[in-house]
């Protein structure tokens, strides 16, 4: 089975994800744009678990927002004020780096965006997001890989970079990829552990108590207290980004990378300007900053796309969290982004305007956003984008003007 292909699993503390190995080392064409000598780079960050877009870029100007999002709603005032991006939208205060990029016009937000997927299963939602197909279908290739295949030939540089223990579906396919995982990623994350503790509590109290104690021991050993500490996750995100950026900064380094950050499924105790989501957003913000500093000169030619499988309910649930919803946000960051804008055909949060009476209604197709980025960065044609990269997607026209 390669039961635990945890090949480096050799010591108590040495549980590692390192040494991921995927496709053979291979080369892909360099797609320097002849016109202006740019050497574009693209990083796709998947946030697994369905990010609450309404808590990340809050429509504080929408009269219904504060009521629906209740105790976790962001506000432009108070102890932890959200950062106003324009007169209507405010950014989560845990993202000062993104705010700075936004002010420098190197970051943009697309709001009320969704893939064509309209149900609420993480697995299927991620399939659609990453495969680029209109529905879940267990396809074994992703849109980013097919985009790689469609690129014009050129000087040889190394191929797409899959960051993490496995290649995310978005980068899987015929075009060769290389893998890299930081050597010291912590093992089971807190979220998985807590879900398991919860299952055991209901089904197997003996295992629940054993696991809880085991986790406590682990925390004690690593100097943490028993409280959930997404701090690890934050460190991890930065570390992953730093490594990926270094690889991509090299002259012959990969021009395209994909990675995934877990933990965005905020059913309970999501938190507002501070709390669990805030920690995670801080990690994402730190990762973006690492990309920026790690890529150095190359940041100028870079676009980072941050996307998630779907959003969360407009109204908070009974446990101060949000359930699976539909529309959410996508973030763009990088020197090549024509930024400083929140791009949105805002549907409003009036009950009548909510998707199925509960979710932010999608008004923008995420595929249009990604197509716009791919076209702006690499010059892929409408036809290739509509037929190969995102099959049967002609109706979702590439969004113009996203890239400088």
């Amino acid at each position, binding site marked *: 089975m390669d039961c635990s292909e945890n090949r480096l699993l050799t010591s108590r503390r040495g549980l590692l994800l390192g040494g991921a190995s995927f496709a053979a080392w291979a080369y892909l064409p360099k797609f320097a744009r002849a016109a202006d000598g740019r050497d574009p780079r693209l990083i796709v960050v998947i946030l697994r678990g369905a990010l609450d877009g309404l808590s990340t870029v809050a429509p504080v100007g929408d009269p219904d927002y504060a009521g629906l999002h209740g105790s976790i709603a962001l506000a432009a005032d108070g102890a932890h004020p959200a950062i106003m991006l324009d007169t209507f939208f405010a950014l989560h205060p845990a993202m000062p780096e993104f705010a700075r990029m936004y002010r420098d016009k190197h970051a943009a937000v697309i709001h009320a965006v969704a893939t064509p997927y309209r149900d609420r299963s993480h697995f299927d939602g991620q399939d659609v997001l990453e495969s680029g197909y209109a529905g879940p279908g267990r396809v074994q290739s992703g849109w980013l890989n097919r985009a790689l295949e469609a690129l014009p030939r050129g000087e040889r540089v190394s191929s797409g970079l899959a960051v993490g223990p496995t290649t995310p579906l978005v980068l899987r396919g015929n075009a060769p990829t290389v893998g890299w995982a930081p050597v010291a990623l912590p093992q089971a994350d807190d979220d998985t552990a807590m879900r398991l503790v919860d299952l055991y509590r209901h089904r197997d109290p003996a295992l629940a108590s*054993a696991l809880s104690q085991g986790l406590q021991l682990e925390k004690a050993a690593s100097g943490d207290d028993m409280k959930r500490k997404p701090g690890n996750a934050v460190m991890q995100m930065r570390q992953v980004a730093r490594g990926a950026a270094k690889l991509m900064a090299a002259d012959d380094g990969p021009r395209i990378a994909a990675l995934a950050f877990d933990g965005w499924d905020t059913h309970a105790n999501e938190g507002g300007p501070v709390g669990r989501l805030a920690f995670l957003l801080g990690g994402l913000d730190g990762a973006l900053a690492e990309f920026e500093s790690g890529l150095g000169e190359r940041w100028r030619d870079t676009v980072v796309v941050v996307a998630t499988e779907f959003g969360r309910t407009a109204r908070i649930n009974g446990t101060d969290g949000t359930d699976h919803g539909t529309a959410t946000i996508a973030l763009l960051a990088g020197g090549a982004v024509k930024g400083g804008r929140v791009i949105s055909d805002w549907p409003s949060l009036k009950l009548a305007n909510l998707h199925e009476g509960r979710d932010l209604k999608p008004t923008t197709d995420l595929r249009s956003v990604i197509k716009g980025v791919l076209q702006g960065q690499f010059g892929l044609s409408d036809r290739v984008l509509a037929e190969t990269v995102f099959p049967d997607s002609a109706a979702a026209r590439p969004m113009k003007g996203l890239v400088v």
Partner: protein
Amino acid sequence: MARDSQAALVALNRFGFGARGGASGDLINAASDPRGFVKAELGRRNGVLLEAPGLQSTPQLGQAVFAYQDQVKQAREAAKAATSAEALPAQAPADPKSDTKLRRNLSLNAVMSEIAGQTAEPKPADIAAKPDTMQPNAAAPPPAKPAPQPLNVIQKTFRAEALARLQRATLVECGFTERLVVFWSNHFCISAGKGELARIWAGAFEREAIRPHVLGRFADMLKTVEQHPAMLFFLDNQQSLGPDSRAGQNRKRGLNENLAREIMELHTLGVGGGYTQEDVTSLARIITGWTFAGRQGQLGTPGSFVFNANAHQPGPQVLLGKTYAPTGLAQGEAALADIARHPSTANFIATKLVRHFVADDPPPTLVARLRDVFVRTDGDLKALATALVDSDEAWKAPLTKMRSPYDFLVASGRLLARVPQDPGPYLNSLNLLGQPLWSPAGPNGFPDTSAAWAAPEGIKLRLDIASQMGARLGNNIDPLNLLEFAAADAASVETRRTIERAESRQQALALLLMSPEMQRR
């Protein structure tokens, strides 16, 4: 027949290694005839034997160790000679050719790699160095490790034996007979940690002494085990000399009771089984001379069992109230045959078997029934296994036993339909989880109660490993499909919901592997 998923879970998890994923249909097959599904494997006695290309016999392996040790020794001496030659330049050889030859032998590594051959498998840790992974110079690369050594013949053999066993366990339909092999192998355990011979023999011992008798007679297994070079080495009987034997008188060494004690305490009668220290000493005397031929082969083929009459204590011996005439090797064989059918043995084995398969606190009625079967059939292990599967207790008892680390890893591999090609990850995980393959801490084997395997640290580590599996393999699986393969409608609502609600396939797989349905049997 009606389908009974709960009974299928008992069939697959309590008696076997869990359902295989993919198109196996194990759960459906087990559900339609649970007892038949388990018992099907009992009809194929030869199916328990394990043969794989390259697996060698105990004497062959013993000779390989002897040869390896000789070469290491020669290399060391050559190195020493070369060092002293360099220290005295006046004595340096004039012929540059012979100098080169000498230098070639300088490195122990070079010699070891010659022994191991060119086709040494990469060690698990080597994977990180494969050229298709990248290392950013920024993210603090791990400190440079010394170049990996090629595996020596002992390590290679151990891995090949482990792989053969793992592959069999992964591929076999139900796994009942393989579980029996593991049970008996642990009952009559040796430890690979004892030394090079034990390590190279660990797999062969199980293949030669356990497997042929798992569905045969207990007395036959007992005799084969106690005469196997691996057991004689593990419990020091090759050093035991009858005080009055010729060798004993010459060498002023004497009896070693280790094997005799463990035979009665751990292998047959059990503690409190009605034997005294006198009996232990007596049995020790009876089996003096049971040894294996060494590298010189003076007593027989090197690495094979031999009876050394020179080391055997002469005269009759009284054991458990019975006098055994001085018949040499036959004296010990007669003693073992009697111990094998002793009522205490029947009780001890029945209790252990029921504890292993049914519950930490074995139902007394079931233990009594198996003890009777053991006595009535003169230790027919197939009859014993059949009686266990036929019992109602085994099907009614709640699934509360904790899977051992080995069972957990094999069950996970089966569910994921991944046939192991490299034993490394399994061996590493087993080390980590406290059940290093064929290497228990003592001759009593690995513990067999849930408490031992449900310890906090162990569970946390299991979660880490499950998480790794999830991260590596979750991409390509449909977790709900897998739950169907593993438990179908015997899965609890909570488990199903937990998996459905996982935020990624990777997480869902980790949670499935850690679910009570996968951890308990």
